[in-house]
């Protein structure tokens, strides 16, 4: 497919630590095939953070479960290519994946309480991963758990290591999850909405923690969130997903300041801000996200898009737009939209003016 070849020529395809090409994840359900991810390509280098933004059902979590091989193998059809440091993951056996998971790549889940076992102490759960991958003794694993808890900022780690998850507060649980994910110094960390359930003050602490740890170890991070504000604080690159596809990607500042896709523009416009005007209504995106059982033809955003009529010939409803850079923007900044650069300049200008004021 021309989509990924076009993009991969712009980023040095060989150098990337994680490279996902034309990934497709389809689930078969009673109602039919759900095309949860439909042709997604991206690359990630060591020490960088990729922020994946999208609404519920856009396929952001599924993508990452597929990378880790945590999908339901019986009902999922995978296609494409996922290379982690040159190793193909989609065709890897369960044994090979088991060796990688928790060791070379690991994940932080959204709901820390549901992801920790209530029957085991926090220390035992952190140590378990370590023992599995390094063959360390129980005593060594406990020492390592204490060290990890200290590193993520849990007070009195030598005491708290023997606590059960219910004795931890929400923020501390999330820290314990991070400690568990980082115990083997993974090179790839996938964080799936790690701060969504947390209060803003704790969220700020967790984001700072992740950034410090990244600087220390050079971890590559995929940060999944629906909050563009969080993205603007933590990500180097941004990938915007809609209906199982990438609609826009590029550097953080490029995407957030000068979005190329109407969906990104819509997301930015629907967020209230702390210093914007208050008496004007927000500009939400009309309609609701598409069903992935029967996704719309052509551009999946076109039924909700304010600009679909500006593109002549019903192109948006029939042809899938390619993810390509726009004239006058950097090579890395690409969007999948039929609007011409001139049209974009004209229609998006109002928005840009509104943001500055």
């Amino acid at each position: 497919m021309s989509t990924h070849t076009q993009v991969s020529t712009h980023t040095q395809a060989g150098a990337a630590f994680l490279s996902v090409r034309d990934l497709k994840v389809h689930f078969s359900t009673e109602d039919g095939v759900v095309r949860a991810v439909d042709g997604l390509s991206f690359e990630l280098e060591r020490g960088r953070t990729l922020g994946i933004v999208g609404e519920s059902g856009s396929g952001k979590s599924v993508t990452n479960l597929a990378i880790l091989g945590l999908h339901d193998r019986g009902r999922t059809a995978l296609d494409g290519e996922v290379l982690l440091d040159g190793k193909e993951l989609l065709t890897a056996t369960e044994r090979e994946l088991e060796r990688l998971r928790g060791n070379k790549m690991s994940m932080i889940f959204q709901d820390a309480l549901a992801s920790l076992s209530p029957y085991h102490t926090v220390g035992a759960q952190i140590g378990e991963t370590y023992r599995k991958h390094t063959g360390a003794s129980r005593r060594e694993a406990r020492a390592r758990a204490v060290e990890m808890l200290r590193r993520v900022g849990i007070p009195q780690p030598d005491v708290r290591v023997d606590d059960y998850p219910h004795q931890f507060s929400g923020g501390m649980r999330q820290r314990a999850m991070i400690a568990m994910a980082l115990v083997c110094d993974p090179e790839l960390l996938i964080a799936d909405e790690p701060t969504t359930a947390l209060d803003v003050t704790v969220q700020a602490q967790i984001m700072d923690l992740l950034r410090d740890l990244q600087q220390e170890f050079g971890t590559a991070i995929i940060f999944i969130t629906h909050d563009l504000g969080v993205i603007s604080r933590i990500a180097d690159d941004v990938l915007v997903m809609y209906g199982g596809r990438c609609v826009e990607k590029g550097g953080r500042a490029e995407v957030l300041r000068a979005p190329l896709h109407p969906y990104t523009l819509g997301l930015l416009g629907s967020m209230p801000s702390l210093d914007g005007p208050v008496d004007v209504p927000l500009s939400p995106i009309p309609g609701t996200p598409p069903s992935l059982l029967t996704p719309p033809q052509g551009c999946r955003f076109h039924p909700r898009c304010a600009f679909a009529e500006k593109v002549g010939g019903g192109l948006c409803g029939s042809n899938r737009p390619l993810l390509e850079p726009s004239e006058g923007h950097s090579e890395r900044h690409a969007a999948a939209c039929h609007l011409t650069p001139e049209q974009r300049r004209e229609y998006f200008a109002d928005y840009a003016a509104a943001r500055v004021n």
Partner: protein
Amino acid sequence: MTITDPLLHVSGLTKHFPIRGGFPVKRTVGAVRAVDGLDFQVAEGESLGLVGESGCGKSTTGRLITRLLEPTAGRITYAGRDITHASRRQLAAVRPEIQMIFQDPYSSLNPRQTIGRIVAAPMEIHGINPAGGRERKVRELLETVGLNPEHYNRFPHEFSGGQRQRIGVARALTLSPKLIVADEPVSALDVSIQAQVVNLLQTLQKDLGIAFLFIAHDLAVVRHFSQRVAVMYLGRIVEIANRSDLYENPRHPYTRALLSAVPEVTDHARPRERILLTGDVPSPIDPPSGCRFRTRCWKATDQCATETPPLTRIDGNGTGHLAACHHPETARTTVAV
């Protein structure tokens, strides 16, 4: 009662949930001080935002005002009537005027009832028969909240999260209330849908003149929706002010820290000050003495531990801008209009 009385007047509102323990006889061994002495007012047609972190007592406050919970102490006066300990029968007269919108659009609608029945339920309960019949009224309401009246006979599972929240709004509007307590009405929704519902609520507030107690943890949403905002911390109000005063000139250190922690898309263009609070919110079972924020405050002194700061107007503040702090932040000299 004069005409200038606020619609809702809350003073010294307190709710302590008892903790039972001990063996063999269970007795009360302590209390979760969820709400500990709140004073605030909501004027007719006004929207008061209530913000704070989880566990600070904002939802409990909402439930006390709708009298879904029985207050431990304090007074709630609605339109001049004391409803603090009003009986079920006495409340029946007030309940049509105070309605609630819930956070979770999935669990707050009965899956076995049609939309028509859900929205008509308040009329059924209060025995109200509007001119033209209940069904017509429901169809009008569905249209008001931006749903297709044809969907009258559908069930909740046929709707998306945003549409379900609209159904919840329609139900709250059925009896033409004067006060709506909205408990995190948009936090379960996606960003693009969230904006749709915020706009809907804002239109309703302006057009129908309904007063709102808008409970949320998202400071940007509250700023957008509420003319006045109260910040809660561990069961108490630490600062209450007009929207512009609070967001542009916060005087309580907690308010400032909270505002600085909000991630904003515009961050990279104009970095704002960042205050990193350390640690977690203390337990409401055994809250710190004096000022409850002192354990995380960078300005705390001995005075903060011994004296509880009163919620008062601090020098340099506009009228109605109250803060509870011994060492308030300096007022910003340039107050934007």
